[in-house]
């Protein structure tokens, strides 16, 4: 009888130990999309999205492992279960909603048309720089515009400076960073806010469809960091105004 009891306790102990341990989550992030997601001087991943994910991980007591990917690969990687969370602000399109679960939106964005004065969207003969896999690329292709897709947000400046493109269509925050570059400012690009519904609105992290329970945890954690000031501190650290 005593030996059976010991066996039962031995079986239960690892379960109890596992219950108290942090869950491990794999998070996909970009490393060349400042100020949302990039590597700092020491090579550490940081940025608005990265730090928000870190804060959420602390809230849900999860151990988050970051894996770098590109904008074009992130949705499929999450949909295939290669990672648990997409630490990238994703627009909630119908196509994406069929592939992954969206957390509660954590910021609102819009798209900018950056071009020299007088160059308007849809103008014939233009070539537009976009980030591959982004909503801006999808929209440009639907419009039949000639595009030059780059892999990362950090690569957008190069085609502009090389005059390979006449305009760039970028998310608001990327445009902000792009405009900080003196070389780009020399181009005297005029920002135009694109009042197109599919190019503006709420952006959220993606969650693997294999981890549906994570949504509730992440949403609650997001609410908490918005209330306790963590979110605003991160916002102020990386962005010049409130983006939620």
């Amino acid at each position, binding site marked *: 009888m005593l030996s059976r009891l010991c066996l039962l306790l031995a079986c239960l102990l690892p379960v109890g130990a596992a219950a108290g341990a942090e869950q491990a989550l794999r998070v996909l992030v970009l490393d060349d999309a400042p100020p949302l997601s990039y590597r700092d001087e020491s090579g550490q991943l940081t940025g608005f999205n990265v730090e928000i994910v870190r804060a959420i991980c602390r809230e849900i007591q999860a151990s988050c492992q970051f894996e770098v990917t590109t904008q074009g690969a992130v949705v499929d990687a999450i949909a295939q279960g290669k990672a648990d969370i997409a630490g990238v602000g994703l627009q909630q399109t119908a196509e994406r909603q069929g592939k992954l679960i969206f957390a509660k939106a954590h910021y609102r964005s819009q798209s900018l048309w950056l071009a020299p004065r007088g160059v308007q969207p849809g103008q014939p003969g233009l070539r537009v720089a976009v980030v591959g896999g982004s909503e801006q690329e999808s929209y440009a292709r639907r419009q039949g515009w000639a595009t030059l897709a780059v892999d990362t947000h950090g690569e957008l400046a190069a085609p502009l400076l090389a005059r390979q493109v006449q305009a760039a269509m970028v998310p608001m925050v990327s445009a*902000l960073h792009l405009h900080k570059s003196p070389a780009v400012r020399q181009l005297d690009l005029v920002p135009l806010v694109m009042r197109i519904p599919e190019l503006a609105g709420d952006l959220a992290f993606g969650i693997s469809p294999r981890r549906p329970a994570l949504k509730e945890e992440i949403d609650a954690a997001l609410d908490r960091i918005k209330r306790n000031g963590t979110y605003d501190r991160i916002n102020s650290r990386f962005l*010049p105004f409130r983006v939620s």
Partner: protein
Amino acid sequence: MSVLIKQRGFYASRAFALLAAIFLVIFGTAVVLLALDQQRVIDANSRLQAQTVPEIIRYQRLARNLEQLRQEGERIFAVNSHASRQQSMFVVTLIASHPSILEHPGATQLARETEQFLGEVVRQSIRDDSRPATFYGEWQRLAARLGTQVDDVSIQGVDLVTSDLNVATEAMRLARYKLMGVLLLFGLFLLAFVVLVRRHLIKPLQAIDRALSNLSVVQPAPEFLPTAMREIQAVEEAIREQHALLIQNDQARHVLEKLANKDGLTGLMNRRHFMQIAEVELQRAQRYRRPVTVAMADLDYFKKLNDTYGHAAGDLVLKTFADLVREALRQSDLVCRYGGEEFAFLFPEIPPGDAAKLAERLRLRCAETEVALPDGRAVKVTVSIGLADASECPIEIALKHADEALYDAKHRGRNTIVLAGGVAEGSQASSEPYNARLF
């Protein structure tokens, strides 16, 4: 036998069960109402947590962006670098078109004005770096409007909390009034319960207790105030019946006692009872040294009368003599049928001489009385009496002396009174023989 009074009333068990049910219904309703108020507070709190707080945060961020807009505008006027102005203008453009601004009509209008104004300033600065200073006065007015808008947006956020708190406060106030009402109701119910229990149970039970304590044949039938409780009515009725039964039993006891103490034919005391009472009376007289006299009487020639006229005539003579005794003697005198035609007497408070006068009166009445028989004939009968002083000896001895005097009276010719120790004055010892007159 008491009269069964049918009273209308309620069973206490049902009445108090009904009271408890009413109590439960009212208190249940009150508790539900209080629970509803609590739910309103919980709802208001939940709304505060789930909707209002996020909305307040949204207002705060809007205010922060408006403030940022103002700061970027100040920067455009403060810096000399065109690049810096462009950078600030870029931020102004982004803020002015950000959804957080666009969803607030007042902020949208002001942000658009600001964007247009600052855009013009930046354009002018390209042509002439000193131009922005000419716009600064206008900018200050615009910046003041932005500051006011920041304040308004902040207050709007705070107002949302005030609204929810007012709902919660109102619900709590209402709940407090209801709670006070419930407490008052509880107090009234408790008071009503105590009053009803006291009036319909305790007081009737106290009355029942008093009635049971005083229940006796010498007391009148217990009277109870009208009561509504049937159980109490039943107990009261049982007590009334018990009292009636006590009286019946007492009456029966009296009848039996009389039957046991009296002679069946004459209605006088029987010998046993006479001896008990005479013993007591004699002791009393001797204790207080009071005079007392006993006597023995015997109807003369009674056996012969029985043989001649029959036992029925003899019985009639005995009854007639008993009647004469009752008429001739005092109320306080004791007399019994001692056996056959023999009678015993006790005369309290008088010495033998006075008693002899009473005995003489009896003897004369007897001798004068004619007894009419059912067959039409009539007979007369005489009596011989012997008296003795009983003030200094036991009753048995005194009666023995009286019996000896009686024997002496018989010996002297009957129809005579003899006092132990001498013939009584006025006696008829010399009268002619009794039997000559009898027939």
